[in-house]
């Protein structure tokens, strides 16, 4: 069964090819069957492989399908590597991926480009599976770029609007900055360690590099550059909120559940390198913390239902980075999984809201929708509880583990913990702000519409509700990947700290209740204060990062491009031509055909030459 692991990316790839080659001529039912069915087959295969793998008790499994290229000592293969970590990832990708595909068969039904949508989606899943199953960094890079491409294609799916195209290009180019850093990291690793096979490379690094050595720092920093790009962390986080221009199922699959967690996966996969560079690992934690706080503030100020969720995604991935940074590898992967459940749920539910209300995105134009949109309401309640880490929901367990690990860390651990707890407070506020504004209070606008949620859209929501509620009880088999044979330590956290961690999110929800439900406090009064108003504006704009990058990179580039459109170098050659033309016409003028002019010039030249001869 394990030998069939190559089928995992193959099914969606075949789906992609058959949809592209028929170029939109298939009936919609056939497209749905191919599009969702291919992912379903992948999931079934993945599940069967997982059962067998876990039953076998092996730690890993390698399958080389073919040798990609072989140049000197560089010989990456199309090889798959399965261990506990990639097993968890492949199940998330195919499982959640299948649910989202199923949902999309209903959601996209009225779109004329139905076939193109599923073609891109299938290509995405194939690339993502390549990314997590690759046994070498070059193949991982193939998946890495592939998901970036699909992300670009799907953000700009509705290509007629130029702003969608802009968002798509922004996403691709911004992540490519990170990708380039990662590529340079690969060159460095290969030049120093002689292999890009992940396990061999990590082993070589462990034996050849001392802890804190410059090469380990450089290599892990370069890989971190790739990770922050894909995972939308500081300083490359600006693309994700704009990526919401795509259809909502895309946001659920690519920009919440799977692709944006690729950076977390990359760091977890190469965690040995980061352990060799403790300062870089600590940097990961700080990046995570600062990102999660900044995104948390911004999420509180947004009006667009999808942008709120986008910033909350940035913030939650910040928690995963925080976990990675404090060495809580398995907790981060655990949070990656629970986040995939509840964030996919939230996005799909948001899709239902948007579709039902005729593409309304502004939460303040909704209100009191809990009876009108019951399934979406239930989904949002459960999803937001999990997002806010309400006790015993899935998000509670995973976030708890990350924060405990931060607290147990020596040195800056307490500071990181406090930051994380503050972030949890904001999570409670912004997640329930959305719930209270959209579903409670008096009904505003859109009174007539009924909830659009047929079988294909409702089923995934129900399944994801169950997973978001109870997913925290799943045990992920990653200990063998991260423990290096050591047993995990027992936690010894005082009851007080535990109490704080449970209470703070509840406090956030309560604050949100007082502002947006009971209206005990008024947002308008708060905004009357000029300082608060300008802070609000600042946070709303995503801390002015877009404007900053515009000023630092985009404008200078455009300026340089504009002033040098006609290529300075060409001007030099044009000058050369001009000079020879002028010289030509001047010399031509000397040929007058008059004998006395020639005699004069000969005499003058002789005099000049003699003078020169005498002088020199």
């Amino acid at each position: 069964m394990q030998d069939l692991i190559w089928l995992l990316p193959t099914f969606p790839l075949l789906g992609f090819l058959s949809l592209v080659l028929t170029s939109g001529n298939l009936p919609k039912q056939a497209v749905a069957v191919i599009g969702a069915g291919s992912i379903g087959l992948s999931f079934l295969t993945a599940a069967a492989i997982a059962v067998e793998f876990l039953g076998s008790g092996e730690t890993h499994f390698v399958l080389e399908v073919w040798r990609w290229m072989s140049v000197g000592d560089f010989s990456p293969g199309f090889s798959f590597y399965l261990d506990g970590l990639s097993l968890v990832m492949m199940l998330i990708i195919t499982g959640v991926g299948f649910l989202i595909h199923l949902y999309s068969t209903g959601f996209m039904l009225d779109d004329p480009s139905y076939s193109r949508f599923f073609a891109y989606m299938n290509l995405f899943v194939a690339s993502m599976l390549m990314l997590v199953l690759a046994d070498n960094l070059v193949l991982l890079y193939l998946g890495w770029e592939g998901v970036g491409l699909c992300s670009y294609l799907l953000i700009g799916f509705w290509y007629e609007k130029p702003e969608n195209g802009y968002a798509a290009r922004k996403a691709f180019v911004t992540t490519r900055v990170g990708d380039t850093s990662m590529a340079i990291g690969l060159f460095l690793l290969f030049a120093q360690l002689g292999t890009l096979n992940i396990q061999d490379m990590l082993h070589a690094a462990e034996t050849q590099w001392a802890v804190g050595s410059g090469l380990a720092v450089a290599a892990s920093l370069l890989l971190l550059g790739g990770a922050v790009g894909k995972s939308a962390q500081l300083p490359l986080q600006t693309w994700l909120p704009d990526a919401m221009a795509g259809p909502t199922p895309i946001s659920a699959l690519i920009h919440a559940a799977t692709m944006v967690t690729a950076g977390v996966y990359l760091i977890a996969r190469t965690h040995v390198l980061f352990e060799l560079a403790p300062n870089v690992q600590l940097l990961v934690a700080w990046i995570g913390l600062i990102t999660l706080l900044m995104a948390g503030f911004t999420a509180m100020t947004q009006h667009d239902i999808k942008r709120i969720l986008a910033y909350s995604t940035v913030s939650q991935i910040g928690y995963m980075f925080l976990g990675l940074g404090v060495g809580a590898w398995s907790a981060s992967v655990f949070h990656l999984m629970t986040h995939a459940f509840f964030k996919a749920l939230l996005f799909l539910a948001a899709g239902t809201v948007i579709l039902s209300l005729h593409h309304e995105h502004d939460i303040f134009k909704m209100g009191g929708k809990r009876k009108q949109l019951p399934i979406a309401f239930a989904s949002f309640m459960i999803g937001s509880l999990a997002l806010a880490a309400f006790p015993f929901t899935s998000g509670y367990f995973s976030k708890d583990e990350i924060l405990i690990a931060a607290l147990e860390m020596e040195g800056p651990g307490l500071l990181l913990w406090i930051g994380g707890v503050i972030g949890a407070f904001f999570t409670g506020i912004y997640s329930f702000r959305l719930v209270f504004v959209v579903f409670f209070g008096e009904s505003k606008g859109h009174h007539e519409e009924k909830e659009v949620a047929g079988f294909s859209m409702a089923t995934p929501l129900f399944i994801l509700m169950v997973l978001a509620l109870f997913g925290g009880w799943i045990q992920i088999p990653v200990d063998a990947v991260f423990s290096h044979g050591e047993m995990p330590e027992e936690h010894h956290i005082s009851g007080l700290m535990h109490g704080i961690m449970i209470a703070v999110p509840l406090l956030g929800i309560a604050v949100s209740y007082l502002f947006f439900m009971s209206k005990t406090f008024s947002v308008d009064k708060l905004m009357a204060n000029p300082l608060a108003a300008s802070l609000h504006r600042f946070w709303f704009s995503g801390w002015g990062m877009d404007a900053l990058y515009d000023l630092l990179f985009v404008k200078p580039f455009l300026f340089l491009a504009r002033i040098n459109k006609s290529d300075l170098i060409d001007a030099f050659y044009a000058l050369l031509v001009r000079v020879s033309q002028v010289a030509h016409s001047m010399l031509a003028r000397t040929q007058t055909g008059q004998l006395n002019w020639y005699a004069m010039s000969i005499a003058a030249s002789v005099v000049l030459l003699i003078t020169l001869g005498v002088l020199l």
Partner: protein
Amino acid sequence: MILVALITILFLGGVLAWLSEGLSPKAPRVVALIAVVIDLLVMFALLGADTGDSNWIVQLNALWIPRFGISFHLAADGLSVLMMVLTAFLGIVAIGAAWDEITDRAGFFYFNLLWTLAGVIGVFTALDLFLFFFFWEVMLIPMYFIIAIWGHENKNYAAMKFFIFTQVTGMLMLISILVLAYFHYVQFGWFSFDYFDLLNVSTSGAIQMWVMLGFFVAFSTKLPSFPFHSWLPDAHSQAPTAGSVILAGVLLKTGAYGLIRFAVPLFPEASMQFAPIAMTLAVISILYCAKVAFAQTDIKRLIAYTSVSHMGFVMLGIYAWNEQALQGAVMTMLAHGLSAAALFMLAGGLQHRIHTRDMDHMGGFWAKVPRLSFVALFFSIAALGMPGLGNFVGEFLALLGAFKANITLTVAAAFGLIFASVYSLWVIQKVFHGVYRNSDFDDSHLDDLSRREMFYYGAMMIGLIWMGMYPQSFLDLSSATLINLIDETGQVFYAVGQ
């Protein structure tokens, strides 16, 4: 003999194509197609050949002008065969591009096209430097006619610019060749222009550097590299589509081939000393031309500048001179040959349909011509270095190898990957995305790709996927040649490096 046959078929085919115009105006294209297809089939015979101990698959050495040591010396190894197959393949594609586009004086057009190809095959096989120079000129003049006669609004300027750039730098190379032959006379007592004889000539110091520069300038003008690149945008924007295909796909590669085969092996010490400068020029080409490309509104000029940018990776790989870097350079030559040819064909196809190259007039074509748009998307994605397609393998290997030679310049070159995504996606946005508008042109002929066009593009797509997914078929062909070159020059190269 097989090499002579390859060249003769093209020369004769060209003459026949010209003559056949008297029979029917549609005859020349058929004759030309048959000639190039036969050529390609003959080349396949070389692929399976057993090379024995030497790397040379076939060799032919006949006296030509013995008094000056000039011989008719042709030979092919894996590298030559790869380049020849690319030439013939793109020759067929070019005939396909010209099929409906060239109606005026078609016979003379196909004559020029085939003679250019013959010259290119000669360049890829000549091992006598005099003969090499002869073929170098042979491919230049018919190309000049192609641009000057069948070009667009500013064709005379472009053709003359192309001619002067190539001719002047070609003269520098001729001087270098003569100096080298003279040195051979001084050291061995007889004249020789033979490659293997000239490899034994020992020159040193400043003289070696100057002689090497003669070759370098000629080759890097052809490549082209900054600062000798400015003929290319004019030539491409004015040339007919078939001309662009041959120019971008094949002619540029003769420059890179010349660097690999002649410039470095003949002058290893000078090349080693010069390598940092060459690599710097390569990096400037990559970054500067990517930036200029982004600013263009003429779609063909844009693609022309991206060509310069991509060929920078080739030069970077060549002057890093290790196995990965050289293989990367060769793979980039092949992959760029296909992707650039396809992009120029798409641009030419658009110009043929709507009579403008100005991207400011275009937009939203996806809704109108989805197949053409998808094909354009595919080749743009290939050009920006998407893994799984040939260009990635080439550029990745080139950078991987170059990193060992020079970290700073490689890191700078890697930024080209970002710029490539900027201009590639910009083209997609300007032409294919957005709302469809046709206020600035007559769209009555804006049809989607025909079956014949899909066939050509499909073949090139399969080629790029093949190169991207299983590049070994190509790497194996060139590896013996490249390893051999590295071994022969390597010791000198690295001795100077330390």
